[in-house]
């Protein structure tokens, strides 16, 4: 196992509104190793996208990073200002967005946009930039890339556009790519192709991915590790296969139980009761307690991080315990997802 390239420590992102300060991301920590894919899972409003934007320093007012560190190869991105941060974006750390229909500028040719992206970091000739763009398109499996460079976004399908976006993200071989639900807007078959492509790219180029998604099916087929978020906090982390096979946190268990594929046709799907709490009035202690089937008297106090022998952890007073694995301690504060 390799060392972590991206290490997020106790990240806090807040939005100052008239009604008070909303902690959209409240003490999130995780690590991603070289060439590995971390699935950042959660419902809408769990803070997973805001985490992604915070890592790239793309939080806009009234939002701000209130604390914590984002270490990219040991360098804290939250301390970088202005042009120094701009030079990291796209070169060292890149991002792919949810809706491929919206992320490419509709009035500029693909080539124009890619050449601008190349030349944002490398002072190369237009021709050289064009060649690199073409190679990048070929690398993500786009047929006849020369023609695509001359096309406008509306002439490409959604899947093709998302491949272009991934190609742009890969242009400068960044250490990490944050992908914010990039396959949510695509057909399932296209989604499958893209996921396979991303897996191959991560293995071949060594680029690490943080794959933000609400779709557990995507994570189970793609990610090495999983980080489950709820109401701005990481509630469970561990190797993807383990977490899906035997979730420790009741919330993860609830999410897994509501995946349709796991059930007989016609059977009523179990749901997690209630809905995601508003960030404006989170319950004291464990935010999930009001919806939790295992909630007990201790849940009104902040739950501890329980670490298990297999490297997994859960933010819970009463984690679901399997026979093989009892909690080791409740002292560690850092989630380890890689290694």
């Amino acid at each position, binding site marked *: 196992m390799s060392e972590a390239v991206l290490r997020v420590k106790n990240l806090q992102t807040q939005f100052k509104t008239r009604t008070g300060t909303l902690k959209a991301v409240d003490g999130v920590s995780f690590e991603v190793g070289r060439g590995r894919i971390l699935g950042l899972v959660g419902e809408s409003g769990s803070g997973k996208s805001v985490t992604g934007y915070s890592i*790239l320093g*793309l939080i806009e007012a009234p939002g701000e990073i209130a604390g914590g560190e984002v270490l990219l190869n040991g360098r804290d991105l939250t301390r970088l200002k202005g*042009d120094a941060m*701009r*030079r*990291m*974006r*796209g*070169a060292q750390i*890149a*991002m792919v*967005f949810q*809706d491929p229909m*919206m*992320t*490419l*500028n*509709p*009035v*500029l040719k693909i080539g*124009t*946009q890619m050449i*601008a*992206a190349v030349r*944002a*970091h490398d002072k190369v000739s237009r021709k050289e930039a064009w060649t690199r763009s073409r190679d990048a398109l070929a690398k993500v499996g786009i047929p006849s890339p020369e023609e695509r460079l001359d096309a*406008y976004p*509306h002439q490409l399908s959604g899947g093709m556009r998302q491949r272009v*976006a991934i190609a*742009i*993200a890969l*242009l400068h071989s960044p250490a990490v790519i944050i992908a914010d639900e990039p396959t949510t807007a695509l057909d399932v078959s296209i989604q499958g192709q893209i996921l396979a492509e991303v897996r191959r790219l991560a293995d071949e180029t060594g680029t690490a991915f943080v794959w933000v998604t609400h779709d557990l099916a995507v994570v189970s087929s793609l990610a090495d590790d999983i980080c489950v978020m709820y109401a701005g906090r990481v509630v469970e982390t561990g190797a993807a296969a383990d977490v899906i096979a035997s979730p420790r946190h009741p919330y993860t268990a609830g999410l897994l139980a509501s995946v349709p594929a796991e059930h007989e046709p016609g059977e009523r799907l179990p749901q997690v009761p209630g809905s995601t709490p508003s960030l404006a009035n989170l319950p004291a202690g464990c935010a999930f307690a009001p919806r939790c089937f295992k909630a007990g008297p201790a849940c009104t106090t902040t739950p501890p991080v329980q670490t298990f022998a297999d490297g997994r952890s859960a933010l819970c007073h009463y984690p679901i315990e399997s026979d093989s694995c009892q909690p080791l301690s409740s002292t560690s504060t850092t989630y380890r997802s890689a290694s």
Partner: protein
Amino acid sequence: MIGFLIQRVLQAVMVMIAMSVIVFLGVYAIGNPIDVMIDPASSQALREALIQRYGLDRSLIEQYFVFMNNMLHGDLGESFIYRLPVISLIWSRFPATLELALTAMMIATCLGIPLGLWAGYKPDSWSAKAIMAFSVLGFSVPTFWIGLLLIMTFAVELGWLPSGGRGPVSNILGLNLSIGSLEGWSYIILPAFNLALFKLGLLIRLTRAGTTEVMSSDYVRFARAQGLSEGKVVGLHVLKNISIPIVTVFGLELGSTLAFAVVTETVFNWPGMGKLIIDSITVLDRPVMVAYLILVVFLFVIINLVVDLVYGQLDPRIRVKAAS
């Protein structure tokens, strides 16, 4: 593309025919020009002779077809007052209005787009708020009043610039223009700025609205995530996306400035087409009015055609629709 052009030209012809009917009817309804033209004390015989000479004794439909027939042969008639062919009358005034309108549009564009971009880029800064306040003044305070203030300040009080009229002209590209000399500029700058103010306010608001919208779009966020500098984000992504509404308004404003710079031309005593049409209306010089209005329609049709062609260049999605 060819099909698109043919379609547009046919549309233009229909618009011009419809307009000629409306103009002709409207002018006919205003009143009998003979009453204004001759001394009320003159004899009935002279009156009859004049009516016959101008063909006013014929029916409206007959008059219309005579007019249309002449127009197709390039003859828009002769002014009742000046006794000159209308075409050469309008043409002699055209360069003055053209240079005034173009200078005004240039001032409005060169100031309006950068100011609007800034106001949209940093909407919360005090400078953006000042720009927006200025833009409200620009299109809400009446033109004639600002014109008078400009004259009071720069011509009367400071004595830097002439208070009205047009500077010496020289022949540039076959047109008699005054912008060839520095002295000519000293005459044109005040009326041009006066005429530009309304358009300046409009362009600032339009540019700002487009900029704020585009700045919050996903592709701007994506461009920033690629590490593009802010200059590149605005210059490459924002500017091209906001240009369609700007080009539309630019075209319309250019047309209306050319046609209806009347107020400014009057205040600054600028010898352009606007003054000509106002003078013609007061004396019911029917051929000038009709010819002028039809020329204005022609001008708008041409400008709109150019604007449509520019759209295709700016937005590839429009190009596809036009071709299919």
